[in-house]
């Protein structure tokens, strides 16, 4: 496990005693149930939710920054894969801020012409 990953897993929500008992880690390396703090919302996300007519993060409440190998990443449910966060982005120390960065990157990726769903759409759309 890399130092970067170790730095972020020391959170209360992970059940350490259960992990010790079973001798293995099960579950996520981040708090999957953490409810978002809108004080940390980015201008891009604010613009996105206004465009969609929502008053909060809606489906993005379930998006958190996780890890793919030893690299920070966000899970894209539309392609069932991880989108890795560029090394050039400096990650803040608290999960709320990291999650907002993950949400913004995910939206930018999903709305891009380069997203794999664009190819799938062209290949399989029925009407």
């Amino acid at each position, binding site marked *: 496990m890399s130092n970067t990953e170790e730095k972020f897993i020391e959170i209360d929500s992970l*059940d350490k005693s*259960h992990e010790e*008992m*079973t*001798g*293995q880690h*099960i*579950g996520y390396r981040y708090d*999957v*149930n*953490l*409810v*978002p*703090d*809108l004080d940390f919302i980015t201008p*891009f996300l604010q*613009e*996105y939710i206004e*465009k*969609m*007519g*929502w*008053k*909060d993060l*809606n*489906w*993005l*409440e*379930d998006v958190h920054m996780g890890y793919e190998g030893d690299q920070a990443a966000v899970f894209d*449910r539309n392609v069932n*894969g991880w*989108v890795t966060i*560029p090394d050039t*982005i400096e990650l803040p120390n608290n999960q709320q801020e990291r999650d907002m960065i993950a949400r913004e*990157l995910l*939206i*930018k*990726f*999903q*709305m*891009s*012409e*380069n*997203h*794999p*769903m*664009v190819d799938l*759409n062209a290949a399989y759309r029925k009407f």
Partner: protein
Amino acid sequence: MATLKDTKSHDMGLHEESLKGRTQQRFFSVDESSNLTYFNSFEVDTDKTATIDALEMTPREINIAIRELMESGVGSITVENPMSRHGVGVGILNRLNLTFTDSLGYFGCGLIDGPNVHIKGRVGWSCAENMMAGTVLIEMNAGSTFGAAIRGGDLVCRGSVGARTGIDQKGGTIIVGGNTGAFSGFMMQRGRMIVCGDAGRNLGDSMYDGVIYVGGEVEELGIDCVPGEMNELDVRYLSSKLDLYGIKTPNGAEKMHKYVSGKMLWNYDKLEPHEKKVAL
């Protein structure tokens, strides 16, 4: 007796397909896109309105009419006389304001990703099944398996709902203004469920993750569903979420009870028998 010929699958080209699976890589620059909607979605204007009278229409005709209006840029659609038809308002992957003036039948507004739906009547089974994003607001009661396998968005019922609410929930928020039936949150994997009234038997049975908040009484907790500890962030979240839809809980957000997974049913490997022993 017929025999299987392996040449058929070769003729179909199945063995030539390159299945890269998870090894596939796409490179993307964060500065590349600033779109706020899906690349192939319709650009709609929510100030442009239209009304569909569904009295003589089949569910398929209603869904096609909604799609054609979106294609022409209409962003606010009202469907009158839906007459409790099944499978209406489904598969909308677009920004849209959609209003149904009366009740819907089974599987209403399933498989949607983005729209804001307002249903002024009741809904049947499996409303908003597999919903990905958006909001669905129901003014009256809902049937069983409300929000089955929901993955994201807000699904709100001002009244009471049937059994197995949020079965297999994988994300999103389900809000019930009244009571919910037995086995609510069954096999819940993620997301949040807020029940302002009472919950029936086996609440959160076999839940893997996620959070259930209940304002009233719980008849019985299911296997591996345990009480959690409310914190300040939970209260803030509940207050703001319920305020969004004008829903009140009898004793206030601070007095709601929180239930989470005991995480004793998580393992699927060789340690599973040991895990089961601990859990049961």
